[in-house]
């Protein structure tokens, strides 16, 4: 794929699978991991300094609407280390981070690490499910649309994808919520489980699935469009390649040409972009979880906003960004393993 051309989704141009091709295997692995580590370090530094320029006294937030006295406030401030000079605070922060300690939430008076770990699983469930469905749907529809380039099917799927790409995630969520949960009363309006819980393993799984439908639907609707467009354009590009003509000339059926040759080759850049755009999915999780009160990391981020709960916000920023960086490093490494053009070197 060429470096030059932006796609509709501004995504195709972002994938640079050429990275590291000329290097030896080990050098490539080291370089990729090194790059990931630098990114992580940047996240850590960013996580600290962005929040220390914040004006305001977080301690006050904890004592709102209640009688308190200056000594009490000073004691709390000392407890959170806010009376230390900035460089000292940064060193403490690094030391704590190394021990997996992200500080104590102002709002919940609990370790941020515990809060994040507690909210991790719902986010993985939601984004994971949505991602799998989006990828399957996007790749499938995208390859069909490309293969029948210019057909009504192609025009319809492309148009739908473009419209959905233009929809703000939260607004779609609100509309879905109003129609399917409030007006039609088919699905729960909020949360991951029914209030009070459900007895038995299987009913509990079903209960979660029932709650998962609307948030997942919303995420899929916004995310799949992108994969569709990318898959479609990379397949269209593959289709003009000479080897397909050769394959056809060999007498291979059209269907086989598509399945054995064109699609696998078009898949590679697409999958790279899918991983590159994980950050986009994570951003979507914040709004979807907020709209549907899904108790994940995105909602936790939102809940930290109003106060603002600095350690918590810092924690979720670090957790979400690190997850994205790690996934990208993994994608780079896997790509290297999978891409036949790279492997043969």
């Amino acid at each position, binding site marked *: 794929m060429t470096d030059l051309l932006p796609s509709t989704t501004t995504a195709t141009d972002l994938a640079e699978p050429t990275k590291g091709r000329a290097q030896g295997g080990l050098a490539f692995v080291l370089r990729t991991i090194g790059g990931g580590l630098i990114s992580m370090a940047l996240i850590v530094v960013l996580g600290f300094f962005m929040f220390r320029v914040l004006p305001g006294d977080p301690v006050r937030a904890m004592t709102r609407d209640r009688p308190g006295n200056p000594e009490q406030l000073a004691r709390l401030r000392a407890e959170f280390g806010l009376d230390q000079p900035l460089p000292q605070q940064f060193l403490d922060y690094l030391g704590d981070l190394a021990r997996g300690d992200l500080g104590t939430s102002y709002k919940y008076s609990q370790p941020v690490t515990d809060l994040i770990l507690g909210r991790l699983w719902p986010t993985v469930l939601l984004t994971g499910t949505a991602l799998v469905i989006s990828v399957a749907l996007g790749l499938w529809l995208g390859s069909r649309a490309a293969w029948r380039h210019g057909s009504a099917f192609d025009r319809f799927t492309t148009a739908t994808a*473009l419209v959905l790409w233009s929809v703000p995630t939260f*607004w779609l969520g609100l*509309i879905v919520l109003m129609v399917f949960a409030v007006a039609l009363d088919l699905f729960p309006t909020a949360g991951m489980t029914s209030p009070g819980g459900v007895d038995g393993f299987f009913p509990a799984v079903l209960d979660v699935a029932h709650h998962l439908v609307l948030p997942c639907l919303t995420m899929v609707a916004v995310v799949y469009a992108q994969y569709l467009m990318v898959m479609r354009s990379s397949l269209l590009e593959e289709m003009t390649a000479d080897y397909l003509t050769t394959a056809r000339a060999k007498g291979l059926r059209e269907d086989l040409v598509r399945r054995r040759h064109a699609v696998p080759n078009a898949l590679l850049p697409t999958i790279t972009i899918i991983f590159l755009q994980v950050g986009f999915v994570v951003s979507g999780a914040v709004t979807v979880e907020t709209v549907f009160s899904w108790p994940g990391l995105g909602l936790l981020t939102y809940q930290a*906003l109003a106060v603002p709960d600095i350690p918590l*916000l810092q924690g979720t*920023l670090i957790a979400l*960004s690190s997850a994205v960086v790690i996934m990208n490093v993994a994608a780079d490494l896997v790509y290297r393993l999978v891409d036949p053009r790279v492997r043969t070197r």
Partner: protein
Amino acid sequence: MTASIAWERRRTAAARFARTYAEQRSGLAGLVVLGATLVVALTAPLYITADDLSVITATGGVLEPPSAAYPLGTDESGRSVLALTIMGSRISLLVGVAATLLSVVIGSLVGMLAAHFGGWPSAILMRLTDFFLVLPSLVLAIVLSTVLQRGAFTIIVAIGVTSWASTARLVRAQTLAIEARPYIERAQVLGGGHAHVLGKHVLPAVLPLVLANTTLTVGSAIISESTLAFLGLGDPASVSWGTMLKAAVDSGAITAGAWWYLLPPGIAIVAVVLGFTLCGRALEIVLNPALAARR
């Protein structure tokens, strides 16, 4: 004489550009949508008075469904949702365009510098670009808007500084391609400094592509604006599509079934973002006809 020849050449180029663009039906549709929105936004003060937007002079009931007097119903203060949606276009467009400009300026600068200088400055810049590219930009924008003073300016900055990475990548690739051309080398040999090469040769060549990219970016900037406003990080004192939706949710419009308050701002966002996306796609094809095969 020569001036008129150059002018003539530009005129034909523009005509060719317009003709190719006009062949893109969806691009034309996008242009029409954007044009209409722009006209509505710019002329809004002519037919919407301060009294229409002031809560103390509002005459409608609370969350009234659409009627002859209020074609799109009323909001929680009895103001016309139609008037608010029209006025909201101004802030939404302003923030979207301004944030995009900021993003494109940063992105182009980083991209051009990285490509032009190479070596370790390039390595650092591209490392930074990669970093911002993968980061969940909304989360970063949330953090920025929390940290800074609330207002339209903060939203512009928050969106601008978190969304420049893809432009940087794009511009870098384009700059590399252009600088490989012989005439750049010639310019350098003839003693053109970095500023000369970048300003006189690279920038004009990169600009069309940047323009197409900008058009696409405005759409996502408008979406980001509304999302930040929905999360409560916007400036509630100004009317934008995002703050309208936030107000609708806060006043319980979902439970009350006040669809007339939720739909118009959302549909307006979708229409405008779609308009920008279609225009951007059409521009890309005009600038790079090879793409047409892929569309």
